C-alpha cells in the first residue's frame, strides 16, 4: 500500500514537472520576439556596429550554439532538442550575454537567495507562532486586539513597500545598514568572522522585509490555537493536573501547528520565486535579481533555466510535505495499515 502510494505521488510530481516545463517552453515561444529572435537581433546589431558583412549562416550557427535551439527548425523539433538537452544532458544552455552556462550562473546565485529566504521564513514563522499562541492565550485582551490590527496591517503591506521604507529609514536616513550588495568591498571570502558579519549585515534588511511578509501566519496560528484551547482533550489535560509547559507544547502547540505544516512547505517552495522583487529593491545579487535582469534583456535561456529550477524546488517541497505529513499527524496515514 505505502510503496504504491509513494510511486503514485512521485509519478504525479514528475508529470507535473514535465508539463510545466513544456508549457513554459511553448509560452516563451509564443511570445512576440521569442528567444531566438532576441538573440538574432543582438548579434545583428553587434555585427552592424563593427561594419562587417553579415553572414546569415554564421548568425544561425551562433544562435543555435547559444540557445540550444535550431532557430529555423519547426517548433516540435526545437522542443525535442531542448528537452533532451535538459533531461538527458542536464544542460540548461548558455547565457546570451555572459560567457557562462546557465547552470553555473544559477549555482552561484541560489545559495545567496536561499540564505535570505530561509532566514526570513524561519524568523517569520517563529515570530508568528509565538505571537499567535500568546494572542490566543490572551484572547479578547487588549494585547490580542492591538496585535491583530498590527499584524493585519503589516500583512496587507506589500513587502516591497516595507523594503523601500526600511531602506529609507535604516540606510539613507540613519546609515545603519547598507542599501545593497551581499558582502562589503574588500572583505576576504572564506570561513572567517568578518566575512560572516558582513553577510549578516547585508542580509538584515532583505530578511526583515520578507519576514514581515510572513507575519500573517500569526493570525492562522491564533485561530488554530483558539480552536485547540476549546477542545475537550485540553480540558481533560488540565483536569489531569499536567504541567503547563507540557500542555502548551504537546497539546496546544502540536495540535495548532500541525495544520500549518503544509502551508510551511509550500512557503519553502515559494522562497526562490518570491525573492525576485526583494532582491531587486535591495540590489542583492541572488537568483531573483538574476531573473529580473534576464527579463530586462530577454535573456531567455537564463529565464527558462531558472524557471525549471523554481518548478523543481516547488514540486519537490510539496512532494516532501505530502509524504511526510503522515509521520507528523498520525491521523493522516498514507493508506497503510501496519498496526
Amino acid at each position, binding site marked *: 500500500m505505502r510503496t504504491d502510494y509513494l510511486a503514485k505521488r512521485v509519478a504525479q510530481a514528475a508529470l507535473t514537472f514535465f508539463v510545466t516545463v513544456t508549457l513554459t517552453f511553448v509560452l516563451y515561444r509564443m511570445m512576440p520576439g521569442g528567444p531566438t529572435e532576441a538573440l538574432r537581433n543582438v548579434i545583428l546589431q553587434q555585427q552592424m556596429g563593427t561594419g562587417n558583412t553579415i553572414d546569415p549562416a554564421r548568425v544561425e550557427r551562433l544562435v543555435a550554439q547559444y540557445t540550444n535551439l535550431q532557430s529555423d527548425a519547426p517548433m516540435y523539433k526545437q522542443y525535442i532538442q531542448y528537452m533532451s538537452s535538459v533531461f538527458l544532458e542536464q544542460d540548461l544552455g548558455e547565457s546570451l550575454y555572459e560567457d557562462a552556462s546557465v547552470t553555473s550562473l544559477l549555482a552561484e546565485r541560489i545559495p545567496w537567495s536561499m540564505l535570505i529566504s530561509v532566514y526570513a521564513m524561519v524568523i517569520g514563522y517563529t515570530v508568528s507562532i509565538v505571537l499567535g499562541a500568546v494572542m490566543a492565550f490572551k484572547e479578547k485582551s487588549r494585547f490580542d486586539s492591538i496585535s491583530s490590527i498590527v499584524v493585519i496591517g503589516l500583512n496587507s503591506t506589500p513587502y516591497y513597500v516595507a523594503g523601500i521604507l526600511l531602506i529609507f529609514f535604516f540606510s539613507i536616513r540613519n546609515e545603519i545598514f547598507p542599501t545593497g550588495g551581499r558582502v562589503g568591498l574588500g572583505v576576504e571570502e572564506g570561513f572567517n568572522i568578518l566575512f560572516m558579519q558582513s553577510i549578516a549585515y547585508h542580509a538584515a534588511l532583505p530578511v526583515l522585509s520578507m519576514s514581515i511578509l510572513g507575519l500573517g501566519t500569526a493570525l492562522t496560528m491564533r485561530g488554530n490555537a483558539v480552536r485547540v484551547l476549546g*477542545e*475537550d*482533550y485540553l480540558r481533560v489535560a488540565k*483536569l*489531569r*493536573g*499536567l*504541567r503547563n509547559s507540557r500542555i502548551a507544547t504537546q497539546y496546544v502547540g502540536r495540535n495548532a501547528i500541525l495544520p500549518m505544516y503544509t502551508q510551511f512547505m509550500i512557503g519553502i517552495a515559494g522562497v526562490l520565486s518570491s525573492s525576485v522583487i526583494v532582491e531587486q529593491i535591495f540590489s542583492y545579487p541572488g537568483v531573483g535579481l538574476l531573473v529580473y535582469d534576464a527579463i530586462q534583456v530577454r535573456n531567455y535561456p537564463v529565464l527558462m533555466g531558472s524557471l525549471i529550477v523554481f518548478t523543481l524546488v516547488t514540486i519537490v517541497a510539496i512532494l516532501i510535505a505530502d509524504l511526510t505529513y503522515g509521520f507528523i499527524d498520525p491521523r493522516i496515514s498514507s493508506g497503510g495499515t501496519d498496526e
Partner: protein
Amino acid sequence: MSNTDTIVEVSNLDVTFQMDRGQSHVVRDVNLDVARNETLGIIGESGSGKSMLASSFLNAVIDPGVSTGKVMYHPEDGAPVSVLELSDSELDRFRWEEVAMVFQGAMSSFNPVTKIRTQFRETLQDHGRDIPAGMDRAHELLESVYLDPDRILDSYAHELSGGMKQRALIALSLLLEPDLLVLDEPTAALDLLMQRSIVTLLDELQTEYDLTLVFITHDLPLLTTLADRIAVMYAFNLTEIGTTDELLYNASHPYTRALLDATPDLNVPVDEMSIIKGSKPDPVDRISGCSYSPRCPIADDRCRSEEPPMMTVRDAHESACFYYDDAPDAVPISAAPDERPSSGRTTATEGRDN
C-alpha cells in the same frame, strides 16, 4: 452533618457567569453531602446546572464561571481540604490524585497526536509518580475495563471505537488512585449496549478500587440500576434527594413525580406520553419563591413568594417542597412502581432550552 463517612461536603455552593445581559446564576445555594463509597446519582434536565455542580467538586468550572461557597473534601486520612480555596499548583496535585473526572464528550478526551501510552505516562510523570509501577497499574486498570492493555497503549485515539475510548478514559482516571470519581454523562454518546456495559463496569470498579462515584446524567432508568442515592436537580438547585428506592416509590416533590411519569414506556403510544408542561427558568432571572412553582400543579401563593428549604420527608429522604405530603396524591404517576424506570429506556427530561 460532617462525619467521618462523608467524603465531600458541599455547602452554599453558587456558580455564576458574568454575561453581557447580566449575571447568570447556574448553581444556586446547593448543599449536598457525598458519603464515602456510595454511588450518588445526580439527575436533571439539560441546563439545570448539574455539570457545573459536578465540576465544582474539582473547582474546574470552565472560564469565566466562578464557584463560590464551600466544597470540603475529606481524605481518608489527613486534614480536610477546602477545594475552592486551593492555589493553582495545589489544584494540579489535588485533581486526579484525590478526585478524578470523566466528563461529557469523552470521545475527544485524548490528545489526537500522541499515543495513549504517552498520555498515561505523562500523567504519572507530572504527578511525580514512579513510572514503571504506574504503568503496571495502567495495565491492570485497562484489563479490568476489559481492554487489551498493549494494544490500547500503542494506539492513537482515532484508532479506537467510542466505547473503547470511554473505557480507556475511565482507566486513565483511576491511574493515580483517586478516592472519588465524578462522571458527567459518561455514557451520553454511546449506544444502549455500551451504556449498559459501562454501568456494569463502574459497579465492578467501585468494589474493586474502593471508589466513591458521583454519576451525572439525564437518563433516569440508567441511574436506577447504579445509584445508591439520587439527587434531583431542577433550575440550578436540588429539589429532592433520597435513596434510589425512596425516590422511585415515594417521590415527594411534584417535579420528581412528573419526571417519573414522563419516563417513556414502549407500551404507551407517543401521544399519550406525559410531558412536563412549560419550560424551565432562565439562569439570569431571579425567581421569587420555588423555582418550580410556574409549572407546578399544586403551587399556591406561598410557593410563589417563599423559597422552600430542604425538608426531611423521612430518614435519608429530603424534599424541597412545602407540600411534600400532598405531592403523591396531587401528581399521580400512571405507571405502576415496578414498571417504572427500568433498563434500556430513556426519560424525556430534556427541557426546552431558551
